[in-house]
């Protein structure tokens, strides 16, 4: 029989530890033969023969020890180095005879009464009393428990210990971080039992038995908190904090399981971000830091700290807003480049409106007003005014501060609109834009304005890169495709100067520019937008010269992709969840 197989109910050394008594559990199976031989033990006050004692204690195996035994006897911190080891290697030299005597007596006795031996000093222990008894369960007749009571041998040591405990308490209470002291041993005991019954995959086990998480949460108790913790949680009395740790995890239920898994795995530390609800009802973002004790340390104390992240997260949110403002500014700068095109686009319908209105007035002021003409002209005024409105709306979309909205889009349509938008700009620069748009592309989910911004930025870069290209060779090829991974891809190729190889991995960085007056944020924004759409953007050079930029974003499957009938310039500001 292996030691682990002994039923230990009701007799665990650990339970004897309640009053800080060190407790050992031994297995005598292998010493049976030795003990039954005639002169196994010395009679009366005869001395032990050293090698006999050695043999005996080498054959006695340690089944288990409690935390106090580890502490008191200075046993290896790692329990594996204690369990199932020969007693000879770990029991203190000075009291080996007493233990050998005790075990022999117990083994020989038919009663299960406890047997006691007293030893004046063992190392730093004084008035050592060993009490041994046989397991009550007769199925494990070879199991013997030995408890050890002792006092520390010098008053100095006691004072020192108390002083160090006090120092420790002071240290914790004056730490400028909220600290909870927790006794996680009850959970530890459950884990040991599970481990003993062969469970190694706690994650799987807790999936099957979710109640274990609640149980662990219930029995693990806070026994002290410092001032900072009370301030963080807005509590008034320390007593509010004492008890089950449940209140710490109520807002982030998943955390309990993760903490438990960490504890089970024997991890030294566990760190995670947590939302907690304070006693006065605030919701805080905190960083949770837990340090589980390892054997050799005070096993009764698990330290839990919280660092308030609320301020940091607020700062992050502010930063994100600045980022958004920044990309707004970037849009404006792209827009600035195109003011000429924009002015042209708006003045066109405006001219038509003015002319038609003036003509109408002339017809109206005639001696016999020609109302038929006025009718025709006025409806043309309405038409042109609508067109002007469309254009202005489109520009507001580009320039306006807006939050991203996600809709189903016909991607080819998005590309076409960009080309229309840049028509004057490209004609001005003698650039020919050729498009090859794969028909029947599935819809993509995204923000029209942002995707247009990406494409407009890329086209603008290409136009700028072709400044020195001979006028007749300034060409841009736009292509859309459904790629092998069923993503919608877009590529733009130009016949410009291309990208020097050593710039290739820098061009997407913010503020990287080779242009006089460039800010270097165009591509950085493109990248962030494409990433927000779940895609990737890459740059390369074409073998025949010029740069190639490509990106691809996930497409919707045919079933999902019911295209909504988009307005011509993407003014639909649906209240669909934001994508960034």
């Amino acid at each position, binding site marked *: 029989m292996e030691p682990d197989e002994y039923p230990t109910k009701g007799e665990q050394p650990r339970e004897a530890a309640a009053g800080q008594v060190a407790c050992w559990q031994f297995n005598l199976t292998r010493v049976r033969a030795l003990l039954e031989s005639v002169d196994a033990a010395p009679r009366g006050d005869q001395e032990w023969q050293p090698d006999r004692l050695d043999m005996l204690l080498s054959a006695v195996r340690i089944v288990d020890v409690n935390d106090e035994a580890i502490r008191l006897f200075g046993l290896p911190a790692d329990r594996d180095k204690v369990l199932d080891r020969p007693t000879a290697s770990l029991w203190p030299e000075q009291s080996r005879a007493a233990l050998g005597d005790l075990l022999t007596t117990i083994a020989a006795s038919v009663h299960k009464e406890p047997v006691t031996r007293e030893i004046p000093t063992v190392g730093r222990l004084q008035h050592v009393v060993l009490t041994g008894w046989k397991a009550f369960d007769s199925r494990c007749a070879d199991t013997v428990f030995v408890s050890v009571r002792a006092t520390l041998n010098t008053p100095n040591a006691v004072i020192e210990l108390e002083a160090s405990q006090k120092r420790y308490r002071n240290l914790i209470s004056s730490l400028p971080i909220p600290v909870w002291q927790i006794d996680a041993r009850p959970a530890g005991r459950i884990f040991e039992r599970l481990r003993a019954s062969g469970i190694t995959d706690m994650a799987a086990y807790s999936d099957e038995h979710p109640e274990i998480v609640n149980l662990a949460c219930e029995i693990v108790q806070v026994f002290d908190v410092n001032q900072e913790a009370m301030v963080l949680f807005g509590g008034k009395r320390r007593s509010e904090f004492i008890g089950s740790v449940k209140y710490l995890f109520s807002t982030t239920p998943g955390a309990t399981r993760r903490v438990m898994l960490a504890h089970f795995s024997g991890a030294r530390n566990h760190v995670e971000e947590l939302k907690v609800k304070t006693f006065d009802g605030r919701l805080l973002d905190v960083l949770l830091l837990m340090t589980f004790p390892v054997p050799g340390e005070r096993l009764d104390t698990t330290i839990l700290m919280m660092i308030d992240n609320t301020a940091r997260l607020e700062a992050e949110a502010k930063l994100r807003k600045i980022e958004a403002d920044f990309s707004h500014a970037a849009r404006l700068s792209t827009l600035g480049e195109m003011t*000429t095109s924009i*002015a*042209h686009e708006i*003045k*066109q*319908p*405006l*001219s*038509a*409106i*003015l*002319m*038609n209105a*003036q*003509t109408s007035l*002339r*017809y109206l002021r005639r001696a016999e007003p020609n109302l038929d*003409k006025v009718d*025709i*002209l006025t409806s*043309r005024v309405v*038409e*042109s005014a609508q*067109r002007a409105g469309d254009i202005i709306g489109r520009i507001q979309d580009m320039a306006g501060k807006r939050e991203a909205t996600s809709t189903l889009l016909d991607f080819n349509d998005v590309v076409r609109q960009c080309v229309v938008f840049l028509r*004057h700009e490209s*004609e001005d620069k003698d650039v020919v834009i050729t498009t090859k748009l794969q028909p029947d592309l599935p819809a993509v989910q995204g923000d029209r304005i942002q995707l247009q911004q990406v494409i407009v930025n890329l086209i603008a870069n290409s136009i700028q890169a072709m400044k020195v290209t001979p006028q007749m060779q300034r060409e841009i090829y736009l292509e859309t495709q459904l790629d092998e991974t069923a993503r919608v891809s877009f590529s733009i190729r130009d016949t410009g100067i291309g990208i020097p190889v050593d710039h290739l991995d820098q061009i997407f960085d913010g503020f990287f520019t080779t242009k006089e007056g460039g800010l270097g944020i165009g591509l950085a924004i493109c990248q962030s937008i494409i990433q927000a759409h779940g895609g990737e953007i890459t740059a390369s050079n074409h073998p025949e010269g010029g740069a190639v930029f490509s990106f691809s974003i996930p497409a919707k499957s045919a079933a999902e992709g019911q295209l909504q009938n988009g307005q011509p310039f993407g003014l639909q500001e649906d209240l669909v969840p934001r994508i960034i």
Partner: protein
Amino acid sequence: MTKVRCVKVCELILTPTIAVVDDDVSICKALAELLEVLDFKCQTFDRPEKFLAASISGRFDCLITDLNMKGMTGLELQQKLSAADPDLPIIFMSAQSAAEAKSQALRLGAVAFLSKPINDDVLHRHIISALNRRSRPREP
């Protein structure tokens, strides 16, 4: 004096025909209506190439053209016409404040360079002066 007035009357009786070239159809239509109410005949073209194909010397008495167009700018059109129909008076319109194009156009003999949107009275005045210029022998 007398001669000029006589020509003017003559021209008005003959109803001058004005060509309009603009790639924006709504502008073409609006101009056509305006010219009609001003008692001119008018023909519109949405592409400069179409106008060139249709124009034989003397068919039009005045040309009103946009500056920025697909295919060919107003300035290029002006250049082409300086060979084909050197006497045709040209009035430019532009939606952009293109100072350089304006001075070039006027240097090459344009009657006027108007910014869109265009005032009807201003346009009328310039058309009249263009027609006068056409009928006047060119100054050396």
